[in-house]
């Protein structure tokens, strides 16, 4: 009986979604001129008439223009997704960082042990040796990903996760390895604080929280896009520390 109701509810939901699909532009035919995204892509938010936009009267047509390798006043990341995540909608990202912070905090409150859990199994030779070689490379790769977040795909979150993977590998290969809670907590907290302080500096300098107060530079250069790389480095380190802490909590047990 339970299955029958479940099928009924799931089918009703799927029917609802499918009936909605007919109102969406069909797959691959999305029209960006009707959405805010065109302004993000052409980096012309400040030039838009917001009133006309809100009232749905604006002509959203954007002229074709050269962006890569040029100085763009408004926003300087080559990766437009990054420019949305860390600049146009940076406040969402602050919330996202907070969710991860909360999750790591929750896991440590729920599982929180102070001692490494022993499984009594020795990792084999191949795993041990290759971990020694791979861990620095993985950490470097993670750092590369978040430092170049404004130029290439990636960014703080995958970069930080990759760093956390290195610590997971260490936990798998070594029964004794144990990160101290104080060090990950300190890195996590200070990097989170850095993000908020960057935002508050924007509030002090430009009048808006998370205002981009640094020069944008040339699109495509490593040092460009104002606060974006700074924020992404902070996020990358924070996520790395946070998830390493989470992995630590999963591998720990209570004293006694």
């Amino acid at each position: 009986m339970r299955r029958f109701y479940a099928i009924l509810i799931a089918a009703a939901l799927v029917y609802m979604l499918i009936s909605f699909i007919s109102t969406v532009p069909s797959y691959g035919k999305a029209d960006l001129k009707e959405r805010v995204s065109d302004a993000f892509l052409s980096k012309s938010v400040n030039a838009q008439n917001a009133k006309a936009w809100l009232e749905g009267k604006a002509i959203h047509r954007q002229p074709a223009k050269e962006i890569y390798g040029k100085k763009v006043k408004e926003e300087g990341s080559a990766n437009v997704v990054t420019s949305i995540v860390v600049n146009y909608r940076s406040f969402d990202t602050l919330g996202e960082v907070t969710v991860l912070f909360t999750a790591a905090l929750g896991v440590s409150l729920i599982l929180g042990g102070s001692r490494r859990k022993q499984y009594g199994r020795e990792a084999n030779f191949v795993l041990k040796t290759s971990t020694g070689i791979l861990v620095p490379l993985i950490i470097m790769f993670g750092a590369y990903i978040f430092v170049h977040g404004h130029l290439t795909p990636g960014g703080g979150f995958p970069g930080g996760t990759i760093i956390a993977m290195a610590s997971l590998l260490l936990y798998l290969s070594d029964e004794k390895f144990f990160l101290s809670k104080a060090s990950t907590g300190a890195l996590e907290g200070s990097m989170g604080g850095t993000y908020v302080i960057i935002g508050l500096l924007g509030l002090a300098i430009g009048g808006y929280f998370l205002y981009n107060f640094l020069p944008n530079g040339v699109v495509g250069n490593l040092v460009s896009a104002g606060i974006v790389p700074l924020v992404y480095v902070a996020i990358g380190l924070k996520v790395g520390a946070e998830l390493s802490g989470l992995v630590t909590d999963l591998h720990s047990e209570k004293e006694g």
Partner: protein
Amino acid sequence: MMVLLIVLPLIFAFLAAIKKSFSYPLLVTSTVVNVIIVLLLKTSVPSVHVLGGWKPPFGINLVLDDASYYAVLIANIVFFLVALFKETVGKYSTVLMVMLAAVNGFVLTGDLFNSFVFLEILTATGVILASKRENYYNAFKYLVLGSLAGSMYLLATIFTYTQVGSLNMAHASYFAISEKAIVVITILYLVGLGVEAKLFPLNGWVSGVYGGNDLSPLVMATAVSFAALYMMGRLFLTVFGGYALHILYVLALITIVAGELAALYQKNLLKTLAYSSIAQAGIVLAAISKSTEKMVSLAYFHLTNDVIAKFVLFLVATFLVYNYKNLNGVFKKHKVLGTAFTISSMSLIGFPLFAGFQSKLRMLMEMFKTSDYLFPAVLLFATVIELTYLVRWNVKLWFEDIEDESEVKGPALRATISIILAILLVGIFLAPNIILNPTTKVAKALLDSTSYINNVIASSMGGM
């Protein structure tokens, strides 16, 4: 300025992660500072903060109008009061700081996706609070429902984006969304918010979470519940003016009846209060769904009374449940707590002399005027059942023979706060306008989507 309400608790929470022993002082500081900021903000209503300087509908904006101001005020005061109880808060201070930031963000934001992010933070922090005192299974139930609701909320948000072309609430409110699309969108939002707003049939988590420990009911039944019910009004009245309200009405009525009946058959004090909280949420939602200025105003008036009464009831009940094995006659030892408990439960039932009477009676009169008799009938039915179980509990706690002879020393702070709030309930009966005036403004602000849009437009035309 208003962004500080969200950011300061957050930065304090990050600092607390560096040095764990500072977390409780930081919690107290952040709640005190937040209450001060809220009081200072009174002069800048209405205003809009544009984050990062990216004007709406492109960036994210925070909207402070009469409605969101009132919700923020209540939420911050509640958190301030909760933060005073050091023993109860325990090692959960950092979680409470994050939750305070999330409640403020959820209420203030003018962006649909941003509200989804804050909703998820609320769920995550709520789960952690619920897991206190090894209440793991109930916390997990809440996590599953909350996460499912989050997914539906996200789907609804992205559906709105496909129709409107932005994620801004003012933009969505202005835009005429096609009939076929808005039905699906509003139903998904109903599911998404229904979990936090305790709407039937998504409220299976409530009794377990409220009844499982001594911290989560204090914040969840008051501040979080208020924020969720505020958001219901904001989305269904301001943004999607008038759609799906009849569905909300029917579900709310079922919620009332189901909640009261479950409370009647419940043998556990905390769970009884939890079910009663569900029923009160149903009353508020039913009144909101009428979408007239009078009824919406009364809805938030009733919600305020409920929040105050529930805060006192849970404050007293958690103390009793976790300190005594048997509750019979326990008020003979704690007369002040008992008085506060009785006053609050009388207010909940709606006896004359207490705040609940004002809101319930006014609601009934208003409904009779519009000759809708279904809601009054359900409301009276609910009152009768409430009378039964609350009087039963009061009798049990006051007059039955004491079985647990031990006596815990009188909790002075708890008694003071609960008796002050209980007296406030009497005060509201005598001068209902101290609450009714602000809630009338809330109702005006929620129903007047034109001025909401104009506020946001004004902020996008330069100036702060």
